[in-house]
């Protein structure tokens, strides 16, 4: 699970071309969206959804699902692990 979380942090930084954030800066429980966390927005989510589908074969249909899934790295890793198993 820790490997998956690290992969996801790397994927977020690479996919969104984040220049001032390294994977190590992203805490497992920190919110990915909004000012309190990484500060991503709904258009960033659109990019991540395609990358997650390509990398893990897991589909996130829309923002209503995405709001839960992208709550934090912990939530995202749990969702992917559950869908893959």
């Amino acid at each position, binding site marked *: 699970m820790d490997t998956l979380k690290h992969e996801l942090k790397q994927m977020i930084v690479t996919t969104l071309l984040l220049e001032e954030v390294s994977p190590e800066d992203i805490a497992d429980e920190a919110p990915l969206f909004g000012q309190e966390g990484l500060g991503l927005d*709904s258009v960033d989510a*659109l990019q991540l959804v395609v990358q997650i589908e390509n990398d893990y074969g897991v*589909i*996130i*249909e*829309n*923002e*209503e699902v995405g709001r839960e899934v992208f709550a934090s790295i912990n939530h995202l890793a749990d969702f992917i692990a559950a869908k893959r198993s």
Partner: protein
Amino acid sequence: MPWHETLIRVRFNEVDPWGVVWYANYFIYVEAARCEILERFDLLPDALWSHGYTAPVIRLSADFKAPARFNDRLTVRMAIRPQETAKLVFAFQIVHHERGHLIMQGETEQVLLNHRGSMIYRLTGELADKVQAMSDSLSRHS
């Protein structure tokens, strides 16, 4: 892949006190061209609404190269940039119809929201087929 082309004539009320088209009015011409394309693929706003969606513009870019003046005839060229995500990106150029020089060019980017205001991450069903048909017909990479 050819551009979709729409012919426009500049009206008196669209030019500014300097006698040239006011910058934001070019987007009215772009919108007329976009609607022609959307109508061809049965994707006008009312059709999109009946599928359950709206498509707000979330990004706009434009470069202005030369002025257009009252009564000029302009060709609005429009194409679609293929997307991996559930977005619609239209590329456009406005050229002088007779003289052929470039007046302005740019892109608009739209996302799809359902009627609850949530963004759609994947296109499915009949809407996906229509968008695919439009994209296949008008895709342009450069």
